[in-house]
Each structure stands twice: as C-alpha cells, then as structure tokens.
C-alpha cells in the first residue's frame, strides 16, 4: 500500500518510516490469513455438495441470514458501542417491505432488484427516525428505548390487520428471481445468500477501516473525548444505526424470500437476544467472530437434536461455559486479542 511519511523531508522520517513498515509487517501475518480465508471460502462454496439433504442446505441458508444480521449488529454494538436491543425490528421491516411489494397481499409484484434497495433504505429511514430522539441516551438507557421500539414494531405488525394481515402473516411471496433466473431451490438460494454475505463482509471491512469507522471506534471508547476531537457524535451514531438497520433489512429481505411467508412470530425479542449472543460469543467487533458465532448458534441446535428434551438446556450451558472461559469470544478482533496478549506479557 502507501508508504506513510513519503513527503517528510525532515530528519527523523527515515528511521520512522522503517520502524513503521517493520511494525506493519509483523502485525500483518498475511500468509496465515490468506490460507484460512481460502479454506473458509472453499468450504462455504461447496456446502451443497457435501451436505446431503435439502434440509441441511436450508439450515445453511438460515445460517447465512443470521450472519448478515450479526454483521449488521456488529456495526452498531461492536464498532460504535450502541446497545441496541430492538435490532430485530429492522429485520422485520425489511422482511415486510418485501412481503408488501412481492406478494398477492397487495397484488404488487415488483422485480426483486427494485425491492432490494428499498429493503435497505426503508429500515435505514426507520433507524434514523428512532435514532434522532433517542441516541442522546447512553448505554443502558438506549438499550431500554430500543427494546421498546422492537416490541412496538412487532405489536404494530401483529395488530395492523389491514396492512400486515396480523398474526396470520403474509403468505405466497414471490419466488426470488433476477432477470428471469429463479432462485427456487435451496441450493440456488444458498448461493444467492452466500454472495450477499460476501458483499457484506467486504462492506463492513471497508467501513471498519475508514474515517467513519475510526470515528465510531472513538465514540465507543470515549464519547466525551470524541466530541472534543471534533466529532459530531450524534450524526455519526445515526449513521451507525442506519447502516446497521440497512444490513438487517437486507437480511429480512433474504429471509422473506426464502420462507415465502412472513409473520410477526419470527421477529420476537428473543431473536434480538440470539443475534446479540452470536456476536458476543464470536467476539464483539470481530467479523470472523460474528460469522463463527452465528454458525455455532445455528448449527448447535441441529447437532443437539438427538438429545431432544435436553437440547436447549445444553445450548444454554454451552453459552455459559464459553463466556466464562473465553470472555473475549471465540474469534476476538485483532485489537482485543492483542489487548489480552499484551497484558499477559507484562
């Protein structure tokens, strides 16, 4: 990449530059990361081949949808440090946006590529509407407000019969098709979902390593200092909220198209909690962590099926065990990992 300090003419620049690139080289660990990335991508791309049944491919699609949700919540909680307990509301808004625009419910059947941006935009607008009055609150207070928002959205969907068909939900959503190519089978849908996961991973990486991403980090670390350093924290928090909401909206779109059915049941407070568990388990603020956490929490109930009655008992126990033994998460982000190792060295 670029060589920092190129334009420095003064004396100390030489050693500075050398020390700097050296430090960067040590921190990079490129080969290992590349290998794990290739292995992971190959495994993900071949899932339909080595997973026997359609049922398990459907599980993989569900996993992809949760990964999208975790990545989005990671922006809000992991990057910016905003405790959003009503995150599932944006997921619901995205899903219902698709249901309204591509089903016999209103008789609308818009092309999927037209609905796609709307499913990001509408939740983002709701995010801004919710955030504008509430993001002045801190920590636990914000958590309570967002929790309330999540419940309000669910109750509205449940009770606005004429608009949303209430608890009965909206059925027979259009099969997702792009330019005539139908994503009807689970395998095809899986690849569509995988492409979106990949796009989101790239997007979130770029966000994290940008001017805005650093500013989010500063707010998470010390909001007062962030303000004093010239950050318009309110506007930045709104942008984190809206971006996270857009991610959730896309996940909602994928979910609705996959199930071909939406109902308020899918968007309970419990869902918000599960998504929270996923990013906490994986490691707050870490992209691979969010992916791993989602995979574990989607796959675990399937693996535990044989023990039927004890399934969720074991699930809960495992969560407790992991969090007590590995509080930083299964795959913590680089900085948090360094934080722990550096402490150990002293």
């Amino acid at each position, binding site marked *: 990449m670029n060589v920092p300090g190129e334009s420095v003419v003064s004396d100390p620049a030489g050693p500075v530059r050398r020390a700097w690139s050296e430090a960067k080289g040590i921190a990079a660990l490129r080969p290992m990361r590349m290998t794990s990335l290739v292995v992971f991508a190959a495994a993900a791309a071949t899932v339909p081949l080595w997973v026997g049944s359609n049922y398990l491919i459907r599980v993989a699609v569900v996993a992809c949808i949760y990964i999208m949700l975790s990545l989005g919540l990671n922006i809000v909680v992991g990057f910016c440090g905003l405790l959003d307990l009503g995150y599932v509301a944006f997921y619901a808004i995205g899903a219902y946006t698709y249901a309204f625009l591509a089903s016999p419910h209103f008789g609308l059947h818009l092309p999927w590529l037209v609905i796609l941006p709307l499913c990001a935009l509408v939740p983002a607008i709701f995010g801004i509407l919710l955030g504008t009055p509430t993001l002045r609150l801190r920590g636990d207070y914000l958590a309570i407000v967002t929790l309330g928002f999540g419940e309000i959205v669910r109750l509205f969907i449940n009770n606005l019969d004429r608009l949303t068909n209430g608890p009965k939900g909206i059925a027979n959503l259009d099969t997702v098709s792009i330019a005539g190519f139908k994503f009807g089978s689970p395998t095809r849908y899986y690849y569509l979902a995988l492409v979106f996961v990949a796009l989101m991973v790239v997007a979130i990486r770029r966000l994290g390593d940008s001017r*805005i991403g650093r500013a989010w980090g500063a707010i998470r670390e010390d909001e007062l*200092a962030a303000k004093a350093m*010239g950050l318009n924290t309110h506007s930045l928090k709104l942008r984190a909220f809206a971006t996270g909401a857009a991610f959730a909206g896309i996940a909602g779109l994928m979910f609705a198209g996959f199930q071909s059915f939406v109902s308020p049941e899918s968007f309970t407070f419990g869902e918000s909690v599960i998504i929270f568990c996923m990013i906490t388990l994986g490691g707050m603020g870490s992209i691979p962590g969010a992916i791993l956490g989602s995979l574990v929490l989607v796959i675990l109930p399937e693996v535990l099926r044989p023990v039927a009655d004890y399934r969720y008992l074991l699930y809960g126990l495992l969560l407790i065990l992991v969090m007590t033994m590995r509080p930083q998460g299964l795959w913590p982000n680089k*900085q948090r990992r360094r934080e722990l190792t550096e402490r150990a060295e002293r």
Partner: protein
Amino acid sequence: MSGPALATTAAAAGAQPDHLLLDVRGLTKRFGGLQAICELSYQVFRGEIVAVIGPNGAGKTTLYNLLTATYRPTGGTMVFDGHDLGRLSPHEVTELGLVRTFQNIRLFPNMTALDNVKVGRYCRTDAGLFGALTRLRGTRREEREIEEQAMETLAFVGIAHRADELAKSLPYGDQKLLEIARALSTGPRMILLDEPAAGLNSGESAELVELVRKIRSDGVTVVLIEHDMKVVMGLAERIVVLDHGMMICQGTPAEVRCDQRVIDAYLGKAV
C-alpha cells in the same frame, strides 16, 4: 513556518503576534449555589503562550470546559476569532480551531496510537459512508493523506515508534504526548493544555517545555493549566492567576511571582 505536522493550520500562515484571538468577558458559571467562575474577563493574543494557574478548585478546568462547550456558561461571552463560543457544540469549537487536552488522560484506549491521531483528522476530512464503501480514488487519496499527516504529527511529538501500539499500553509520559498529538492533528489555531506536565519526571517535563515551544513556533497559540512552576515560569509569557473562580492577577512570570495576592492564595494569608 517549519513543522510539517501542522501544515493545514489556517492561521499559521499569517500569524500576527498582537492580534486578539480569544476574548472572554464577564464569564460566569454557577453549579447550583457554587460559583465556579465569576465575572472572568481576559484576552489571549495570537502566538502567545499563556499559563493559567491557581490553587485546586480555582476553576481552571471549568474554564476549559466552558471554552470547549462542554459546559454552558451562566453568563458572559467568549469570542474566539470573531465567533461566539457560547452557542456552539463541542465539535464545532474544534472545527473552529480551538482544541483541548484532558487533565486525566482521555485517549481512545483500545485503538492504536496512530488511529487515535487519525481520529483527530476527522474534522478536516470528509469521506462519508459512500466513500468508505466504494473507496474511489478521492477517498484513497484522503486516507493516504490522513495516514501521512498522522505519522508526521506522531513524529512531531516524538512517539512515531509507538504508532502501532494500543494507546492504553503506552507508558504514561507517551500517553500524555499522544493526547497532544491527537489534539494537534485537528489543525488547531489555539490549544488548551490541561496539566500537561503532571506526573512527568524532570527530564520529560523539560522535553515538554521544548515541545510546547515548537508548537507555538508552528503558529499555534498555547494556553496551559499547570501546577509545575518550573514549567510555567519557563514557558509562559503571561500568567493568569485564578482563585475561587476569579482572576486575582495577571502579568509576566516575574510580576506574578512577587504579587502578594498570589502568595496569599497559595500559602494562605498571614494572620
């Protein structure tokens, strides 16, 4: 001007030493019944180094909090370069070119030293969400500039070798320098230092004195709160003495040192 670190400081180019930069008049701040700042009036001119001293609880940090819009004044005006600070929010004050450091270090502890300084460049750059996602040429160039300037600023305060370390794992003295670097990277015209020498050993505070001189020679006006009298007397061209929220005297170090009111404030009145 010499230092590359502050190349974007607007005021630096045409620094006029006798030009009024900060004009505080009748500034008052009450917390309930407590009068923290009372009818305070003073001026700071471009290119000065001014020290604000006074016993604990005199209202020095409150004054900084008022100037940077962290607190709202109860009364009075603060005009910085023609702008009324009383109506602004903290980030707008920083955008105007008035920036502070904190008495109890307030870095972004889990970010690297370099990223801490890069955050300071935020208010002088403008890539948004779209730029972050697309990384078009303009954004990439801006990122490169941010990185270069951040490295230069770290080199300017002398901790470039720490760029990749987490702020919280730096030694105390370097953390203080990093705070100054972060503040300088916002491109200020005036920097408010809050006890920069507190906790430094004598070697480190001698280096700090040099650094503050260097900052000033780059065209940044310096106001510092400081208890270390060696630093104050070595640096300040003018000293403002506060006690109980009021200015009890101001003048050159020599004048202030002999002022009976100052001696009384620090040592108590002779009975």
